[in-house]
């Protein structure tokens, strides 16, 4: 909490500053009335402590000015004159309390606490939030009766959040409340203190997100909710990862710039070892970072650059084209990701990330929107819009209702459907359209990936029934795939690729645990690497085929060998298909989905023939 002291007696001002600082308040001092008023207008204070007799503008006038301009912070007047008249004038001018000099430090602190309490409509001297308690009288903080040892700034942070327990504080706002103008640090310092405070709270047993991040805005105390509501507010790690990328993207760009500097020096035959090492380190970090954020191509490009810039490689002018090509690829990948993230996080200030959307409806008629909202409430968390944005899709709805009439031309709507199918294949789309009699429209919608076509006019209940049917079909089709490969990089790439298609993927890098995993996972399709230590894919495949339960399980091999002999061996062991490494994403996905579909049809035929 930040307090402004307006006092012309330097010794008294110093004593006040000392007393208040020892109570963990941030204190600023102005030595005359006008300077004090300037401060009040420029910064945010939680409380004003004013001397009555001041040069240039007296304390009573300051009180009147402050109140007439709508400022609501408590004001405590401080004066050596003790008369009923002075007290009455001060209080009438807008002051909240009065302390007579020479002041008693203990009494002054107690009065300040009382005023701060009153300004927050609190009657209790201690501040509490769930199991967290802060007692300003002795600066003691406990969580579930565990005492926390906080630094003065961590204490002040917590007090700020507790006194304004519904407010979101940006880093800037926290800086304004907790630091004085002269020693304001960077926003990074706020984040460091928040981190420290969170760790201490966690160590005392508090939930990890008691002090929660409101993405794009700041921090606040997490609202105390019933347990069911807390589960619904589970943070979405994918979205949080996008936010981390967003925060660090400038550093990535800076690292590319360091590599570019080395290239420029190399081109001028003036590459110093220092610049080379910096570029090499940048490439190393980028190789790790870009891969972690899903930019596999960028990661590979960085890896190549890292190798070229390694000391032992003795980089020369002949390496220039490769370095330049690699940097171009890096730039392209980072730009693409930046654009993606910008689209996915717009608008950060209003996105409610703690609430996931179940059903995203893009509908034109307001009546239908109202009816949908009313009918869907108890079943789905529904968001109804008239325009489709990446921000909504980033919240992973389980189904989409797409009204083609929301688009200026039907072709635009169909293009949106194509893009949805391409970018979010796991989310089923139910399409609404006015053109009832057009067979062509129905065919186009089916070809572009629409799961169901509803001709308007249609009721909200009919739409929701269709959603139920589509979701039931999705659940039934959610196939499980088990992948066995000793190369974790390949496993990671396959998980990313297949999960995107709505498949449930289990991975195994130790073939020795194969049988237990197979039985526990009960997959609908098995992918095996051909060459693995301990047991080869061929051996595992043979074992699977000898078990009656698994005899018909579709098996796809992954192999770097393309020689006919190797492929013959794979099929002889009982494989259904094979894919070559390096993996070609689209081809592999198509093959797996086809294989799963074929296997599902076979099972259906078998079941029907038995009944």
């Amino acid at each position, binding site marked *: 909490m930040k307090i402004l002291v307006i006092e012309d007696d330097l010794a008294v001002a110093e004593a006040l500053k000392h007393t208040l600082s020892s109570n963990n308040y941030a204190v600023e001092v102005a030595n005359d009335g006008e300077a004090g008023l300037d401060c009040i207008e420029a910064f945010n204070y939680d409380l004003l402590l004013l001397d009555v007799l001041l040069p240039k503008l007296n304390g009573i006038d300051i009180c009147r000015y402050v109140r007439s301009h709508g400022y609501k912070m408590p004001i405590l007047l401080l004066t050596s004159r003790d008369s009923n008249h002075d007290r009455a004038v001060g209080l009438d001018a807008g002051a909240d309390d009065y302390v007579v000099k020479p002041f008693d430090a203990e009494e002054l602190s107690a009065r300040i606490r009382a005023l701060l309490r009153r300004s927050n409509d609190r009657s209790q001297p201690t501040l509490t939030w769930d199991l967290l308690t802060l007692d300003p009288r002795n600066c003691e903080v406990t969580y579930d009766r565990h005492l926390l040892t906080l630094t003065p700034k961590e204490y002040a942070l917590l007090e700020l959040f507790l006194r304004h327990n519904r407010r979101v504080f940006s880093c800037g706002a926290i800086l304004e409340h907790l630091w004085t103008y002269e020693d304001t640090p960077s926003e990074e310092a706020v984040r460091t203190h928040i981190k420290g405070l969170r760790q201490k709270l966690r*160590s005392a047993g508090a939930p990890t997100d008691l002090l929660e991040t409101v993405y794009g805005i700041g921090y606040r105390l997490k609202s105390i909710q019933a347990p069911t509501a807390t589960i619904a507010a589970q*943070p979405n*790690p*994918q979205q949080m*990862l996008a936010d*981390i*990328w967003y925060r660090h993207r400038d550093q990535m760009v800076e690292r590319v710039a360091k590599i570019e500097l080395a290239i420029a020096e190399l081109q001028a035959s003036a590459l110093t070892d220092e610049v080379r090492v910096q570029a090499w380190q940048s490439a190393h970090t980028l190789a*790790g970072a870009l891969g*972690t954020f899903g930019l596999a191509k960028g990661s590979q490009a960085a890896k190549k650059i890292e190798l070229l810039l390694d000391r032992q490689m003795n980089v020369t002018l002949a390496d220039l084209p490769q370095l330049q090509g690699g940097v171009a690829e890096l730039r392209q990948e980072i730009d693409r990701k930046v654009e993606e993230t910008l689209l996915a996080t717009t608008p950060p200030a209003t996105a409610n990330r703690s609430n996931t959307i179940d059903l995203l409806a893009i509908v034109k008629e307001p009546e239908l929107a109202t009816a949908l909202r009313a009918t869907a409430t108890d079943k789905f968390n529904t968001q109804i819009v008239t325009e489709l944005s990446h921000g909504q899709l980033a919240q992973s709805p389980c189904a989409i209702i797409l009204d083609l009439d929301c688009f200026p031309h039907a072709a635009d709507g169909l293009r949106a459907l194509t893009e949805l199918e391409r970018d979010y294949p796991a989310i089923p789309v139910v399409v609404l359209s006015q053109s009832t009699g057009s067979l062509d429209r129905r065919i186009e919608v089916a070809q572009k990936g629409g799961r169901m076509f509803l001709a308007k006019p249609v009721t909200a209940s009919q739409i929701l029934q269709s959603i139920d049917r589509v979701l039931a079909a999705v659940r039934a089709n959610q196939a499980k795939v088990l992948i066995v490969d000793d190369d*974790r990089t390949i496993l990671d790439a396959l998980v990313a690729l297949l999960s995107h298609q709505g498949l449930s993927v289990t991975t195994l890098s130790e073939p020795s645990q194969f049988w237990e995993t197979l039985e526990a996972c009960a997959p609908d399709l098995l992918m095996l690497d051909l060459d693995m230590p301990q047991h080869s894919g061929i051996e595992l495949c043979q074992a699977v085929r000898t078990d009656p339960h698994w005899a018909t399980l579709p098996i796809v091999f992954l192999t770097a060998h393309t020689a006919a002999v190797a492929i013959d061996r794979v099929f002889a062991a009982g494989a259904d298909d094979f894919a070559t490494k390096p993996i070609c994403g689209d081809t592999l996905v198509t093959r797996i989905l086809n294989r799963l579909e074929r296997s599902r049809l076979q099972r259906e035929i078998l079941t029907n023939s038995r009944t």
Partner: protein
Amino acid sequence: MSSKRILVVDNEAYIQEVAQICLETIAGWQVILAGSGLEGLATAEREQPDAILLDVMMPDMDGLATFSKLQSNPTTRSIPVILLTAKVQSADRQSYAALGIKSAIAKPFSPMDLAQQIATTLGWKFEVAGK
């Protein structure tokens, strides 16, 4: 309920943030962060985490030097250490195992699978329903 506590030692802020988000939200473990080998040593001694995720390439004191200091300190010797490194060829893995390092996770890693990889290595279970 006593939650598992894992210390992440990495000088890269993005790794710290990614690891913290993923391990806390997916697995429900408590994450403690340290930004250097030296800080990692002090934090490990003070906090006594259940495991340490240690980056190899760090300025001043790298991951392997940090590991050897952890080993020479009786109060941190028994804490399992998982390396985070770009070097995960089988020869590298053998040398890590010979040193007594529990496992090595390849960089770049897949954030959504990080918790699963650690859980598999250490035989831990997730404490919140994850994806």
